[in-house]
């Protein structure tokens, strides 16, 4: 058991089956599919409320997704903790300034990577809310419900992702 928890990586198939079973648990116990991106929208609303006050709740979008802590928000907080534990058990926990593959292609300058990550994040934040879900909500939870919207979404995620990554790594 201990050795197992200390392993750096598990088989992707074991991890996949685990996530599939976890999805069953959430449908059973919470009547909800796993998802991550609305938590970002709610948090963004909470931050906006710090600056603009109660008016934020009047925005049409926040009437649909109230800026408050909910089940999914707790789930995303849990993901941070779970990944922390996994990395701590396997001795992988450490500050990483720039990922190796980025450094090999674009250099070790942290600010270049951070600005790129910020820009990529902005696209992702807009796109996830535009499409109504992300790689978890559409990519896993939606596809397993055999939802048409989610199969279309995940196809577009990967078309856009592969094209952009190829362009970035081949062009620069």
């Amino acid at each position, binding site marked *: 058991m201990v050795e197992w928890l200390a392993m750096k990586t598990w088989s*992707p198939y074991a*991890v*996949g089956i*685990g*996530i599939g079973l976890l999805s*069953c*648990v959430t449908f*059973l*116990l919470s009547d909800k599919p*796993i998802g*991550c*991106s609305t938590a970002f929208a709610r948090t*963004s*609303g909470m*931050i906006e409320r710090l600056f603009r006050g109660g008016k934020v709740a009047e*925005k*049409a*979008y926040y009437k649909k997704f109230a800026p408050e802590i909910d089940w999914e928000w707790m*789930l*995303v*907080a*849990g*993901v*941070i*903790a*779970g*990944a*922390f*534990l996994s990395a701590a058990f396997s001795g992988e926990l450490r500050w*990483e300034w*720039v*990922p190796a593959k*980025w450094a090999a292609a674009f250099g070790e300058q*942290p600010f270049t990577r951070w600005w*790129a*990550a*910020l*820009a*990529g*994040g902005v*696209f*992702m*934040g*807009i*796109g996830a809310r*535009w*499409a109504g879900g992300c790689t978890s*909500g559409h*990519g896993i939870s*939606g596809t*397993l*419900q055999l939802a048409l*919207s989610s199969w279309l*979404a995940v196809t*577009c995620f*990967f*078309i*856009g992702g*592969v094209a952009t*990554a190829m362009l970035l790594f081949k062009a620069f």
Partner: protein
Amino acid sequence: MLKAIHARKGVQLGIGLAVGVLFGFLLQKGGVTKYDVIIAQLLLTDFTVVKVMLTATAAGTIGVHLLRSLGLAELHPKPGSLGSTAVGGLIFGVGFGILGYCPGTVAGAVGQGSLDALLGGVAGILLGAGVFSELFPKLNEKILNKGHFGEITWPQVLKVNSWAVVFPVAVGVLGILVLLERAGL
């Protein structure tokens, strides 16, 4: 019994947290909280991300439809339209290719200590979600409902029993995974 659990808000927040911890643990052990692994998938040199996602989908499809057939779970398919799902999906993809994390794995990356995820990725996604909330009324009027097809599932489209889709999907996934392994990817 289950409905009573669903209705208890405090219990639900606890379940959400517990599920998140397990989800984050699995994602990190799968290696998919790492930029290097995700970007290698998008450059089509390492298929770890696809393997995790397809296996999760196959296992979850069977499990969730089993629960549904037993009357223990209800489906909640997301609505879709070309204007929202396809356009938004492609914008997401551009972000995916630049950031190299997604909203779930970026949280996991923060947990393992990746500073580009914390200072760049999370901040960017929050900013993007804020921009979207600002644009939402206009987009909703002009684009999001174009080509609307709603909360429909494959069994509904094909007018068949869910299991007539569940089994082919599971077998298809298995076939793709076998091909990937044979190709050494």
